[in-house]
């Protein structure tokens, strides 16, 4: 049958689809129609495709970091130094002391045997290229861990609040309000500076601080999603059959409510990496010399009077960080359109 026979204007595609013999792909069957629509939204607009490509490139850089920039010494996250001179050196200047293995792609591309500072060095002769490549791993690490932890806290608190309602809901949501009053960057900064003397300088203090002050958004989203699902018939059926409330919540409600949150959360990696870079820019977090974008940028703070000369300490790590965040934002933007309840059933 043709669509036009049912509906001459061709407007009512949804109706047509329910009657049609449209093939349902295995993916749609496994994730369900609502979630399938969300996944389809990922590749719908040119913007989100560009975003996916950017993310893919960064994933590749992170995976192939040892090939792209061969490490020196035992700890690959320590940026190799070419001496200890304070003044930064420009892109393309030859590598003198402590030369790492010349990556094979460089030899094949340029035919050059001598390894150079491709993107220059920052103060203290830290190689910027190396920092950017291995900083990608740092970014994914921190982003992933912080997002998983914040979602976990958010989902647990949000679903408890939504499911039990009443006083419990009120208490949890007021605590959420209190955490939301405080400015995020400032509180993350404060908490990591409290934790640094206890845990030492590492990735941990800023990560814990960002988790402690980053879960509120997810708690709110999951709460409202569960509130809308709680009244559905199958939940009532589960209640009527005498299941325990914990089982209803975690087996029947959460799996049906969590998908939008997970999608939004995975796109939150961009924001987390941005926050982490901001903290290390302010001088909190890893020890000096750790491969991390914010730290290379923080070196620029000592050279602001001559930034026109040493532009490469700002421009290269700055562009990298911006592109990384932009990749996640482009996809996130497309996702928000798809997940907007007002848009439901329109695509």
């Amino acid at each position, binding site marked *: 049958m043709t669509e036009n026979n049912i509906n001459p204007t061709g407007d009512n595609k949804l109706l047509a689809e329910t009657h049609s013999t449209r093939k349902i792909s295995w993916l749609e069957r496994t994730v369900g129609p609502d979630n399938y629509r969300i996944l389809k939204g990922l590749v719908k607009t040119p*913007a989100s495709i560009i975003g996916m490509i950017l993310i893919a490139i960064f994933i590749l850089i992170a995976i192939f970091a040892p090939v792209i920039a061969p490490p020196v010494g035992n700890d690959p996250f320590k940026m190799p130094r070419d001496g200890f001179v304070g003044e930064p050196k420009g892109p393309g200047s030859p590598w003198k002391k402590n030369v790492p293995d010349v990556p094979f792609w460089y030899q094949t591309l340029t035919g050059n045997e001598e390894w150079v500072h491709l993107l220059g060095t920052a103060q203290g002769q830290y190689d910027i290229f190396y920092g950017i490549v291995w900083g990608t791993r740092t970014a994914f690490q921190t982003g992933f861990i912080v997002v998983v932890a914040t979602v976990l806290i958010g989902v647990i608190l949000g679903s408890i609040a939504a499911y039990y309602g009443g006083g419990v809901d009120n208490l949890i949501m*007021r*605590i959420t*309000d*209190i*955490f939301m*009053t*405080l*400015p995020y*960057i*400032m*509180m993350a*900064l*404060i*908490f*990591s*500076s*409290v*934790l*640094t*003397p*206890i845990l030492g300088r590492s990735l941990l203090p800023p990560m814990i601080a960002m988790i402690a002050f980053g879960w509120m958004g997810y708690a709110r989203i999951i709460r409202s999603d569960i509130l809308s699902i709680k009244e559905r018939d199958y939940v009532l059926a589960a209640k009527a059959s005498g299941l325990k409330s914990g089982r209803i919540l975690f087996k029947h409600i959460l799996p049906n409510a969590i998908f939008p949150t997970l999608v939004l959360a995975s796109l939150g990696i*961009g924001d987390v990496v*941005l926050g982490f*870079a*901001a903290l290390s*820019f*302010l*001088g*909190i977090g890893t020890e000096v010399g750790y491969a991390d974008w914010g730290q290379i*940028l923080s070196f*620029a*703070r000592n050279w*602001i*009077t*001559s*930034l*026109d*000369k040493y*532009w490469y300490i*700002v*421009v290269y790590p*700055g562009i990298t*960080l*911006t592109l990384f*965040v*932009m990749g996640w*934002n*482009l996809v996130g*933007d497309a996702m928000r359109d798809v997940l907007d309840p007002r848009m439901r059933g329109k695509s």
Partner: protein
Amino acid sequence: MTNYIIRRLLLVPVLLIGVTLIIFGMLQLLGPVERSALYVRDFPKNEKQIEGLIKKYGLDKSFFEQYWRWLNGVVDPGSGERQGGILYGDFGYSRTASQPVVDIVKERFPNTVDLALWTIYPMLSVGIWLGVKAAVNQNKFVDQAARVYSIIGTSFPTFVFGLLILMLLYAKAGWFMPGKMSDWVSKLVFSGELKQYTHLLSIDALLNLRFDVFWDAMRHMIMPIITLSYINWATFLRVTRSSMLETLRQDYVVTARAKGLKENDVINRHARPNAMLPIVTMAGSSIVGLLGGVVLTETVFNYPGIGKAAADAAANLDVVTILGLAIFTGTILILSNLIVDIIYAFIDPRVRLA
């Protein structure tokens, strides 16, 4: 509406207690020696002094007992002087800056306000204007361009943007500079030749009719103003655009068009005022955010506001100072959020008449 305002007012003490508890909880992670900075200025020199301090200020008591002392301070039995006590405006002593935290606040907060004052107008006007333009030309070139801009704008990290601005406008062109004022201005200020009525440098300069000082203040503030406006434009553009699109679909807009009103009147007099409601909330929270200390922008441009003070204290791991500043900004934020919500209640008939 009275109901709404009463409920909103009742929330304030809850928020204040919550925020102080969070911050005090963080303080408890410190050792007693560091915590003694809440009450006394000098670092204890030996074991005996440390023990004396712990005993005198109850630094080993239970959480809530200590919380109580932190709020009210401890009255010295000998001199009758009160030491510490945030309710009495004593946030402790900054050992890295060698001055009471309150003095840091008094010195730095006017600068933050000064900057916020000059950022509000460019931030709001341009952002809203762009959003209206984008909505009116939905899906046309202007709209697409605005959309691309808003994504780039939200992805550009504040400090990267700030560093690039510094590179171009300061290091290369030399038009503007970081910091707060030039040396000759600071001499004027310290000698008292420039009378300080408000402690906001730009306003004081105008009140003293010293336009050269005003120009100097502006040259130091323009780069942070550009940065702060730039990062907020993208958000305002987005919110204004979607709210405006929503409004343009309403029946009364169709009616206005059907009456034969000019498109300009439809947009400027019927649609835009109604589309402003969500933007008022946004504007409120952005302005509140400016007051709460813009840590990154102030640090990039070496602008001596509250945010820079917090960043410096954090870099020196001076926790008592930074938590004192947090209490101050937290209180400011809670109170200004209250004001914004009440203003909103007056503007939005749905709340006003409820």
